[in-house]
């Protein structure tokens, strides 16, 4: 898909993220906005995922390991037509299928229930491992948070993926630099991330996570690279697209009030 079309989609996703979190009066906005280009590219340019194959247990899969960014996942599922746009407004409310952290039991298209950090990447490794064992060509993608990489399980999973040479697995690391308590290097420094993944026998690519050409090129390189899983360290801006949310960790898990909501939507409408 052309970059300008992807940009329109990413902007639609951002608007729905802001609408959902504002409407729910709770949710994780900053780390959803930082991942809009990555998620848009995966669902509209990379993965083979359609209404027809959605219920297939084996197909290309996406695991949102940083499950708190559920607004970006539900937004892209709506953009694909897998869930209704109106349903997005039930997010985080009682009796909704759209849980605060995504549940695969309720929604086809949520490929793994996540939210407890560090667990999604292991499930992605399991999917990729089973496809290899069964000689299936499907690919598995996962989005891991930079703060999430403080979880030991991330590195247990990274070790296993390197050990089993899972070149059908692509990990995006949403390197926006902030977690709920602040700057990741001040809370508990997980850097350098590129060298860590290399040390666990991964192919590592570093990109600007808001640049479609770089995202597409990294995905192409990952597909061509044999014998190792690929980690794409994507430099991103937390809260991207809304100036007062950008690089401000106060927006990790805060909902905008009416005034802030209107200002955020005005900024996104102008893009």
């Amino acid at each position, binding site marked *: 898909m052309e970059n300008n079309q992807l940009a329109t989609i990413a902007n639609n996703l951002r608007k729905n993220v802001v609408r959902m979190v504002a409407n729910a009066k709770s949710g994780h906005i900053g780390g959803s906005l930082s991942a809009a280009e990555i998620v848009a590219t995966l669902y509209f340019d990379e993965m083979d995922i359609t209404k027809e194959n959605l219920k297939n247990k084996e197909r290309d899969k996406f695991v949102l390991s940083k499950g708190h960014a559920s607004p970006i996942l539900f937004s892209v599922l709506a953009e694909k037509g897998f869930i209704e746009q109106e349903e997005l407004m039930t997010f985080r409310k009682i009796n909704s299928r759209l849980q605060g952290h995504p549940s*695969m039991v309720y929604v086809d298209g949520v490929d793994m*229930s996540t939210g407890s950090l*560090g667990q999604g990447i292991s499930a992605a*490794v*399991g*999917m990729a*491992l089973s496809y290899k064992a069964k000689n299936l060509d499907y690919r598995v993608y996962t989005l891991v948070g930079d703060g999430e990489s403080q979880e030991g399980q991330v590195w247990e999973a990274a070790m*296993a993926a390197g050990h089993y040479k899972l070149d059908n697995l692509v990990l995006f690391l949403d390197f926006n630099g902030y977690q709920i308590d602040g700057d990741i290097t001040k809370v508990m420094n997980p850097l350098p991330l590129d060298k860590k993944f290399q040390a666990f026998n991964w192919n590592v690519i570093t990109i600007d996570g808001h640049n479609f050409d770089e995202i597409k090129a990294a995905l192409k390189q990952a597909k061509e690279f044999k014998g190792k899983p690929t980690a794409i360290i994507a430099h991103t801006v937390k809260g991207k697209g809304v100036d007062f949310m950008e690089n401000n960790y106060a927006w990790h898990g805060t909902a905008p009030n009416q005034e802030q909501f209107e200002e955020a939507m005005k900024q996104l409408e102008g893009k």
Partner: protein
Amino acid sequence: MGKVATRVAYGEALAELIQKDDRIFVLDADLSKSTNTHKAQEAKPERHFNMGIAEGNMMGVAAGIATGGNIVYASSFAMFAAGRAFEQVRNSICYTKLNVKICATHAGITLGEDGASHQSVEDIALMRAIPNMRVIQPADDVETKQVIEKIANIEGPFYVRLGRSGVARVHDENYSFKLGKGNVLSQGKDIAIIATGVMVEQALLAKETLKEDGFDVTVVNMASIKPIDEEMILQLSKTHKGIITAEEHSKFGGLGSAVAEVLSKHNPTRLRMIAIEDTFGESGTPDALLEKYGLSAPSVVRHVKEFAKELE
């Protein structure tokens, strides 16, 4: 015949199953010789994956494999499967209702010489508390083989609690395990002993001694701890003066608690729990440990006699 550990029967059953059923994957965490999954590895190496000493990741990987419609048997010691990986089991396997069968070996104090750090006496309580989880503890090799084969065709997560040391065979070849059903091994009338795991053998040994002393007890094997056989428990409570539960597990949250939950709700009955007190185990032979921690057949005999006196 000689005694066979349930983990050994598990390994044999799994090695047969993996050859018959193409949906099966097996995971282990560097304990495949101990858990006995190495037999499945020998039978079908392309479907057995060693995940190294990383149990949390192993449970997540199991969940991921299961999303593809596969059946995953994941093994480690009970301490690490239910303890170390508790939250991965809860969130990645049970919340998702995925088809993962956690077969945890070396449960309880009869793990023996390795000592308290490896003796899981809390795992039934932990696993029983998770929604969607089913908890089974087979009593012998016959039952273990049936459980391992049958749960492959029951959708969703299971926790199967297996032991390290040999246990006597208490079922004949005609026995058929049913999820949610207890099995009366020996019918008596005074007191009913509801036992699970290694305690089934101890309860049967105790019954023989008690018979000589004029006590006629019923011995039930309650392998299916969740779901539990409410109907049978209530029936036993109506036909006996009192009930004793016997398990190689903490007195908190295990079989005794499960039976108490049923009785207190439907038919309050005098209940005595033979279980591990609020304490850790220690190194020793399985038999020495059973004796010291009050789980041997003579201890069961003593409990029955004391309880009978209380019930007079």
